[in-house]
């Protein structure tokens, strides 16, 4: 767990209100670079809201979310950046982004945070390969001189497009979808669609990949394959992962760091082992009222 030594994302005091409803209440946590950080909690705990705040789909009511590229020191720069009206800062060794100030597409394009969705959002009428090409829109757009160069058929664009196809092929092989590259995405079975969504997110070249319930609806074998894929993304590509998941076999096996939410409030934060034994987590999942009841439950389950 590298949350302290090498953070990539620091979420501070994030609160999200929808009218009178407080979906996320004063949430702070740090995700480490090269870690798989899991965000868990019962249904309706506010996990997806946190994701939507991080990826710019919601603007948090209160709070700050700082993401860094490279080795820029967050502590010494974040206050300085907050005082300006800008959303990012280039310093020695890297750059710092304030995600709450950025529009959703900029979070992906500039801060390099990619995400998947709880209910899969593929371009179902486009082929698998096209889905991955759309993910590389921004570099291809530059290579095509904002369409003008591509329109007259410049060679530079042609070569860049070939590169993009190679990147897509790499991820298709990695997610075992290469044989279905020319099929419409809507034709794939559910498990393949989940993997395709991850491959598509990875094609944007992210530093932080946010996965919203990637194992939902997968069978045990597919879950194991997913574990291997996520580990490979972390180890071979150095992409940090932030994960919402209900499937504890996935969470406990692959996470380096677990944050638990209940009713929008953080109730636990630590390694999987620590969280597993946290009485408040057990209470939240099993529905106990107070400490004494928690102790009774613990005694019952033999902790």
């Amino acid at each position, binding site marked *: 767990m590298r949350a302290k030594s090498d953070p990539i994302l620091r979420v501070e005091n994030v609160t999200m209100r929808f009218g009178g409803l407080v979906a996320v209440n004063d949430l702070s946590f740090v995700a480490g670079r090269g870690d798989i950080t899991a965000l868990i909690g019962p249904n309706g705990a506010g996990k997806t809201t946190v994701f939507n705040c991080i990826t710019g*789909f919601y603007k948090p009511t209160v709070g700050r979310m700082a993401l860094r590229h490279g080795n820029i020191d967050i502590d010494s720069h974040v206050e300085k950046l907050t005082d300006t009206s800008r959303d990012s800062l280039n310093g020695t060794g890297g750059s710092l982004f304030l995600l709450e100030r950025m529009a959703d*597409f900029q979070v992906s394009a500039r801060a390099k945070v990619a995400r998947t969705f709880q209910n899969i959002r593929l371009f179902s009428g486009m082929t698998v390969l096209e889905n991955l090409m759309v993910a590389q829109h921004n570099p291809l757009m530059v290579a095509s001189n904002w369409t003008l160069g591509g*329109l007259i058929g410049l060679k530079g664009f042609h070569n860049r497009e070939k590169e993009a196809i190679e990147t897509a092929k790499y991820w298709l092989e990695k997610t075992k979808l290469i044989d279905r590259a*020319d099929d*419409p995405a809507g034709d794939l079975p559910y498990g393949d669609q989940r993997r395709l969504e991850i491959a598509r997110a990875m094609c944007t070249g992210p530093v932080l990949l946010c996965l919203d319930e990637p194992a939902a609806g997968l069978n045990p074998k597919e879950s194991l394959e997913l574990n291997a894929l996520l580990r490979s993304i972390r180890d071979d590509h150095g992409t940090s992962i932030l994960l919402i998941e209900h499937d504890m076999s996935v969470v406990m096996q692959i996470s380096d760091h677990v944050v638990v939410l209940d009713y929008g409030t953080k109730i636990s934060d630590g390694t999987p082992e620590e969280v597993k034994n946290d009485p408040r987590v057990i209470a939240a999942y099993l529905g106990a009222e107070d400490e004494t009841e928690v102790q009774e439950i613990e005694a019952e389950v033999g902790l």
Partner: protein
Amino acid sequence: MERTEKPVINWGQLFKDGVFAAIVAFGLFALMLGFKTDQTLNNEMVLVPRPMLLWSVVGLVFLARIAIGYWQASREGRIAPPKKATALWMLKAEKYGLPMVIGFLVAYPMFVLLTAGPQGAIKWIDNFGIQILIYIMLGWGLNIVVGLAGLLDLGYVAFYAVGAYSYALFATSEPIKDFLAQLIGEGFWQAWAFWICLPVAGILAAFWGVMLGFPVLRLRGDYLAIVTLAFGEIIRLVLINWVDFSNGYAGISSIPRPSFFGVPFNATDEGFSAKFGLEFSPIYRTIFLFYVILALALLTAAVSMRLRRLPVGRAWEALREDEIACRSLGINTVNTKLTAFAIGAMFGGFAGAFFAARQGFISPESFVFLESAQILAIVVLGGMGSLLGVVIASILLVGGVELLRELDFLKLYFGDGFDPAQYRMLIFGICMVLMMLWKPRGLISAREPTVFLKEKKIVSADHVKEGHG
């Protein structure tokens, strides 16, 4: 599954049904269609019998009843054949159909000239050829907005109007003419106005496309449709009411006609016919106009085909499929939508400038909502995103209406006052309803992928989304 035995068709029963239906039809229509009240010159009311009309309707009902009965009987016990997984013929149709259509269009004026002679050819080239090509071009332009980007635009005619008025106003502007007359020479503007104003009209239309795009970016579906509809009406109402600017209802007349790259089409010694040693005839101008609009339409097709394969085109289609996913992949949806609006509008503007130059006179009457509806109908009928589909739909809708005017022989049956062209909206409506029943996604509904690894497989319409608005 194969049918094991042929269905038995009871012809006697069919005939009986037919006679019965005919009797009912006769009873219903005998008074309604069989007689007509008319006024003579002396203001007398007289009853005009119309036996031919009555009998033809009754005969039609008789035949139709037998046909329906036969159809039903032949279907009995039949199992629907399994649908083909991918409609390969559609891919082939796009691949071979489009070059064939283009080849035919290039040869069309010569063909008509040979068969109909110089006098009769003007009608066929102008009313059919040019008219249909204008709609093909508008359809291809709107196809970028509706078919690719999935943004329902009910006010496309606004850009057509912007293009037409930009050309008309610039070309008839006295200050510009005088200024250029001093600078370059008398008659320069008259000769070159079209070629200079054509790009200007496109740019202005694109500008208005962006102007419309900005306020409607947040809207989707029905709301987007209503706002674009309103935009189309606003442009028309401004043109009607701002008389100082656009001359209101009276419109703008004596708009310079396009020249053959500086050589005018007139009977003078400097004219096209004299220079090329031909006898003067208005047919040359018509043929030239045909090739101009053909070139413009092919430019639209080439650009939109090319754009589809570029990142911006893929982003349009992705936007149609899922806007939220697009934003999560770092695509600036605002810019992407605006480029779709602007490029679609630009082609509308080109077509508008051509329209003004061809007519020589424009007024707001030419840019009513019905035009927008017709262009949209062409795109929807053709199959959203399909270039060949738009061609077929334009020929059916525009050419069909023109053909109705040619059906003079129907007057023999229905009396002198009968004008088939009056029924065009009825026929148009029936066609639309039938399309919605049989081919709800348009004539050519499958999608061709823009990039492939091993083989190009067609994407069936079941997966392709229509867009959110």
